[in-house]
């Protein structure tokens, strides 16, 4: 058996694939954050909590309304997205013009509230959520057994990332949005309703997070703290990728998943910290991030 640094090549491939799957998750999750932070300059620390809400809504739909995975994929993001728009309209808008760090503190507080309430009603060990019938089982790829569901996650992630990137970078809507963040007054003078645009965009970013939550439910279980664990990593991804660049977040998300996967093989104890090491390095060398626009 051929080996690379003492690891059989088959095992290495399987780890790379697993890393890619995780990376697609990071990319999907950081997508919403990249949109909100990159375009709206809102430091959305409650992104993780909203991701968890997406999973929670999916679970609630299953338990109380008997609506399974497929309807949940549509309904949960809409519900949570509307909730996000409410947050933006009632709270975040008041912070416009202030130091963005107040936005961080506000969303941090919101995250604590959302997670705390969920914890009190749903406990901490979480609830199981089954993989939908159509996606269960898996394929034996020779070097590993790939559960179908994980393949599905990669697919959706790639599609959504491509779609979001396209909309923000190549459509007129995206152009309005990018212009609005740079010079809202001028854009408003052109007749575009900037406040509504911002609210809707925030809602969309939140909906993306909720969608990631629904997709995560069968893999990671619906548990109130699932967002807290991820939020710091996701922020790191956005910071490394560049806080203004959708493409940066996507690429970094996938890359980070792969790097983490490799770390798990060669030095598993560090797999939690490798993302922070990279982030610290990037911030020291290229503070705008790998694809960022301004320093």
């Amino acid at each position, binding site marked *: 058996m051929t080996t690379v640094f003492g690891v059989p090549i088959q095992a290495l491939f399987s780890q790379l694939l697993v890393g890619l799957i995780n990376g697609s998750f990071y990319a999907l999750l950081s997508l919403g954050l990249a949109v909100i932070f990159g375009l709206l300059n809102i430091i959305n620390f409650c992104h993780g909590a909203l991701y968890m809400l997406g999973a929670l809504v999916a679970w609630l739909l299953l338990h109380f309304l008997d609506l399974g995975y497929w309807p949940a994929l549509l309904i949960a993001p809409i519900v949570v997205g509307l909730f996000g728009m409410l947050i933006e309209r009632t709270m975040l808008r008041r912070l416009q013009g202030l130091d963005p760090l107040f936005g961080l*503190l*506000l969303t941090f507080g919101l995250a604590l509230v959302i997670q705390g309430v969920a914890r*009190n009603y749903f406990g901490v060990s979480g609830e199981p959520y089954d993989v939908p019938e159509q996606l269960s089982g898996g394929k034996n790829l020779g070097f590993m057994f790939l559960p179908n569901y994980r393949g599905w996650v990669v697919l959706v992630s790639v599609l959504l990332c491509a779609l979001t990137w396209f909309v923000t970078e190549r459509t007129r809507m995206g152009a309005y949005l990018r212009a609005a963040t740079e010079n809202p007054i001028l854009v408003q003078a052109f007749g575009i309703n900037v406040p509504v645009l911002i609210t809707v965009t925030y809602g969309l970013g939140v909906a993306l997070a909720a969608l990631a939550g629904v997709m995560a439910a069968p893999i990671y279980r619906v548990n109130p703290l699932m967002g807290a664990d991820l939020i710091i990593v996701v922020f790191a991804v956005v910071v490394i990728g560049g806080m203004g660049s959708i493409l940066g977040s996507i690429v970094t998300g996938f890359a980070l998943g792969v790097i983490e996967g490799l770390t798990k093989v060669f030095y598993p104890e560090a797999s939690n910290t490798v993302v922070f090491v990279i982030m*610290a390095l990037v911030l020291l060398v290229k503070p705008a991030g790998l694809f960022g626009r301004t320093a």
Partner: protein
Amino acid sequence: MTTQPVEAPAGVKRGVSRRDDVRSLRIPMLAMLVLGLLAPFVVYPVFLMKMLCFALFACAFNLLIGYVGLLSFGHALFFGGAGYLAGHAAKVWGLPFELAVLTGTATAALLGLAVGWLAIRRQGIYFAMITLALAQMFYFYCLRAPFTGGEDGIQGIPRGKLLGLVSLDSNLTMYFVVLAIFLFGFFFIFRVIHSPFGQVMKAVRENEPRAVSLGYKSDHYKLIAFVISAALSGLAGGTKSIVFQLASLTDVHWSTSGEVILMVLLGGLGTVFGPIVGAVLIVCVESYLADLGGWVTVVQGALFVVCVLAFRRGIIGELSRVLRRPL
């Protein structure tokens, strides 16, 4: 060195010199002193000591955010790290109380130098994220390092004797020692703020390019302020771990970093007494709600939201505005 008065928050009458500032605060300080001396005879001293340690931590943090304008999201690194070192020094190396606490403080200062040197290069959200990332790395290190005892923490830290003479096992004696430490830290910070160095710091916060154009190396000042803040956070953390005879992972977790931010925010950013009030209130709230376990985080989060939306100046900040004097 400048002697010009710094731009004061609106509505607050300012003395022309720093002497006036000190004079105007004499009464509140005296009140604080009297309260501190009498309180242990009314209230459970252990509870008060917790408040004092966190009050010192909050004051140290306030130095950084209130006067230099840097929001660090990783101050638990210094607080908890010093706690571990002080505990280790007292338990394993057998150092007496004051040397153990000094060990903790020195460790925090060194860590502050390292973290500060890395983080000062960037500002605002980047600065916050770097401090958070470094604090997370430290947390994971503490989780695995054998000397920290991992999840169990360092337990059974002896309180020892002060200067080899006075046994600190009695809660009352320990309380007065902690009060002395707190007052030392508090007055040290006060002195720093109301000094030429403090004036330069405020100038850097208000308008960094202008300060640089006047010839001040703003990065140096920021780093020194950071190290002072870290060292005093370490003083608080080291004292706490010896008083409670326990150093645990909670003290280096990001939730502790968040807690101290809330204390300062609630009390009043950039005020002298704000952090103390904030610390006292938050410790009380947590005690009351301890029975309700999970609701503590909800209340903390709600406080954050309310403070940021409607109460940005904090309690003492609002009080200061109403009384028209700096507090």
